[in-house]
């Protein structure tokens, strides 16, 4: 058990030391990274070069079936009796051609590709009182991106089609038999089973995740906002303007606000992760202590907050904490306070309130996880520690905590990045409020980057800035992941666990 070995060697300071060594390794790491990147580029160009050379030699050495396949995809496969593959290649090419050169130019790939550089030039105009819509920048960008995806897919498939020809030719030359369509179909259930299994998920992710993300990255470089709203208005490329507006420090820009929101996002993620982690572990230890009865009942009570949909529980709790809500009313009735506590109106109070309520949501998860892990700690470890005369706290510090930290390292990382994007808690509790004159762009003191992004999208239809924020969230998450990957060994190697 590798993790146990690690744990025996490790000390609580391991993490700190890891952090230190990360920074000392950083320059070297960056140099290595750059070298790797350069190497990557070299091998990329080499790869392209090799492919080109191979294309030429295949054409030169190939028979007429192979050569014709350069023009008509799948022809070689057809001609050699592999009609299943041939049909797929041919169908793909046909669909591509129809899409690119459709007779109704308005719907063809070429049309959108041609307009991509300007995102449309024809303005909407009026004929009498009737509105004639001009170019729709949104759909030009969307279908433009789709067309590029399609072209790349075609180039790849075309290349595969030629490679197939080459392989088939060689196989035949050496007196082997080619796979029949039935063989191909059978292989989908066996040696190529992964293709069968991944086909649908890959299609779904490509269309509904990759394409949209690509699109939104491009939107960050346009002026797509409330005043450039298709179909009535056009939008177009503006380069890095939006990044400037969000990050620059002058008064017309959002630089100050962005830093403020980013800082709170990180503070929030830190507390939401680690406070819940330790308190959850603590509760788990209490429940699991020998001699405590009704263990199942305590657990069940706690997991209620997981089961009940958050839009019910959090919305209700948010109202409970209002200035005239139940909590304040009762506190005043009992004479504990004379004035309502400013749970949602004071920025600092609001932040603390959110972190505290989030404990209510978060402890149960950690309690369940910690329970599971605590059970796996070998009992003889405690036994021998006890013989050495260790007290409860020492055992916790020397055994429980390091073990927990080690096995849940990856979880802490995903939980931290998850909390950076923890939309629900903020949105349902405070909606990002309170606002302040010191903050621009509609951001409030409890807004995370993700809720700010949401406000920009939904309230202001300011898609360009929302896209920039989205990209920056990605950058933040990626940086954190990189740092931690370099710090915690247990995150790195998935095969270790098998």
């Amino acid at each position, binding site marked *: 058990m590798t993790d146990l070995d690690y744990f025996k060697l490790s000390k609580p300071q391991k993490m700190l030391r890891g952090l230190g060594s990360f920074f000392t390794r950083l320059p070297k790491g960056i140099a290595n990274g750059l070298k790797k990147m350069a190497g990557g580029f070299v091998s990329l160009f080499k790869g392209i070069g090799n492919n080109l050379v191979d294309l030429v030699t295949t054409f030169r050495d190939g028979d007429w079936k192979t050569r014709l396949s350069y023009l008509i995809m799948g022809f070689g496969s057809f001609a050699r009796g592999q009609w299943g593959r041939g049909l797929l290649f041919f169908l793909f090419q046909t669909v591509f051609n129809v899409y690119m050169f459709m007779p109704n130019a308005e719907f063809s790939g070429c049309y959108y590709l041609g307009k991509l550089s300007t995102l449309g030039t024809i303005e909407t105009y009026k004929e009498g009182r009737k509105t004639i819509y001009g170019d729709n920048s*949104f*759909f030009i960008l*969307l279908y433009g991106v789709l067309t590029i995806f399609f072209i790349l897919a075609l180039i790849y498939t075309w290349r595969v089609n030629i490679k197939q020809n080459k392989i088939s030719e060689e196989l035949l030359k050496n007196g082997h038999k080619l796979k029949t369509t039935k063989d191909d179909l059978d292989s989908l*259930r066996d040696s190529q*089973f*992964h293709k*069968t*299994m*991944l086909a*649908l*998920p890959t299609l*779904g*992710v490509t269309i*509904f*995740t990759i394409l*949209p*993300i690509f*699109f*939104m990255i491009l939107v960050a470089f346009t002026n797509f906002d409330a005043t450039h709203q298709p179909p009535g208005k056009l939008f177009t490329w503006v380069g890095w303007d939006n990044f400037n507006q969000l990050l620059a420090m002058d008064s017309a820009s959002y630089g100050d606000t962005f830093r403020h929101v980013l800082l709170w996002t990180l503070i929030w993620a830190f507390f939401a992760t680690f406070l819940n982690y330790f308190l959850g572990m603590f509760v788990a230890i*209490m*429940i*699991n*202590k*020998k001699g*405590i009865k009704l263990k199942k009942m305590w657990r069940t*009570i706690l*997991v209620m907050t997981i*089961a*009940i*949909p958050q*839009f*019910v*529980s959090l919305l*209700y709790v948010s*109202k409970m904490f209002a200035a005239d*809500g139940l909590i304040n*009313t009762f506190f005043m009735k009992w004479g504990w306070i004379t004035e309502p506590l400013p749970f949602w109106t004071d920025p600092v109070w609001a932040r603390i309130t959110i972190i505290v309520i989030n404990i209510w949501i978060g402890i149960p*998860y950690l309690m*369940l996880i910690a329970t*599971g*892990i605590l*059970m796996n700690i070998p009992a003889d470890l*405690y036994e021998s520690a*006890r*013989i050495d*005369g260790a007290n*409860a706290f020492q*055992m916790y510090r020397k055994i429980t905590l390091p073990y927990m930290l080690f096995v*849940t390292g*990856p979880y802490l990382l995903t939980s931290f990045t998850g909390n950076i*994007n923890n*939309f629900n808690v903020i949105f349902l509790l405070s909606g990002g409020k309170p606002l302040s004159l010191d903050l621009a762009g509609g951001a409030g003191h409890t807004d995370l980057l*993700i809720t700010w*992004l949401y406000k920009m999208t939904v309230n202001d239809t300011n*898609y360009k800035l*929302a896209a920039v924020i989205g990209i920056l*969230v990605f950058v933040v*998450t*990626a940086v954190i992941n990189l740092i931690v990957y370099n710090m915690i060994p247990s995150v790195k190697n998935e095969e270790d*666990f098998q």
Partner: protein
Amino acid sequence: MSDKNKIPEVDIVVDEAAGVIREVKPENLRSKKGHERRINTTIYVALILISIVWLAPFVFLVFQSFRSYLTESGAMVNYLLPKQWSLDNYVWLLTDPSSDFLRWYSNTIIIALFCSVLQTFMVLSVSYTLSRLRFKGRKLIMNVVLVLGMFPGFLTMIILYFLLRQLGLTQTGAVPGLILIYVASSGMGYYISKGFFDTIPKSLDESARIDGATRAQVFRMIIMPLAKPIVIYTVLMAFMAPWGDYVFASYVAFGSKPNYNVAVGLYQWINVNDYQGYFTRFCAGGVLVAVPITLLFLALQKYYVEGVTGGAVKG
């Protein structure tokens, strides 16, 4: 979890065993026992307090839902117990012609049922493939999913909306539209069930392969029967998620009231000014949503625990 005998009780307090070994005198032992009892009492007190804090909001919610909007008030009030208990709100939700609650409820059930089947299929396909099969591009796929996962979800809301609209799946088509969106990218959430598949010994597949089974047969006949816990976990998660989605559901269904899900329908009652005095109805609706989900969750809690624990450990 299911088998209580397996639980090694984690004992952070030095117990008698240690005392015996160090040969403590009997009076010391007695004081140790007293110490032990004091600690247990403290823990019980703490657990009772925690339970009160955890349950109070839900109990309050239930109280409010029984306040009559006819004789008292449907708005928020500053007292807890209804002056007169009544089922007004529930009756209104379920029978009033101007209430769309049942419609929203059935929309959500439809979405949840479809998601639990289709999403499970997607997740299991991906996780099984990435866990058990070795092929070119496997690492690449995992890295791409990792990178994609770092983009915030709501970034692409506007474009997903328009993709759905091009397919005619917004407003009146919101229910199938939402199912499509939830299911399409669900394969990316493969981590936890991959972690589960990783723990099934490879020798099982190998011996079956030697007997001539195809990979598809191995998946169907060998792995799936063993995967019951993770299947139930995935189904449970897929079933529960649509109940809470307000943001995207409201974006897709806007304007078309009969096609809302419960979250969208109830959310507007306490956040849009047009609905004065709907607060108790919100509470009643919340109770009607929460009760079945909670019961289902508690019934399948065991599988949930296995899932999250495994997921946390495997990453």
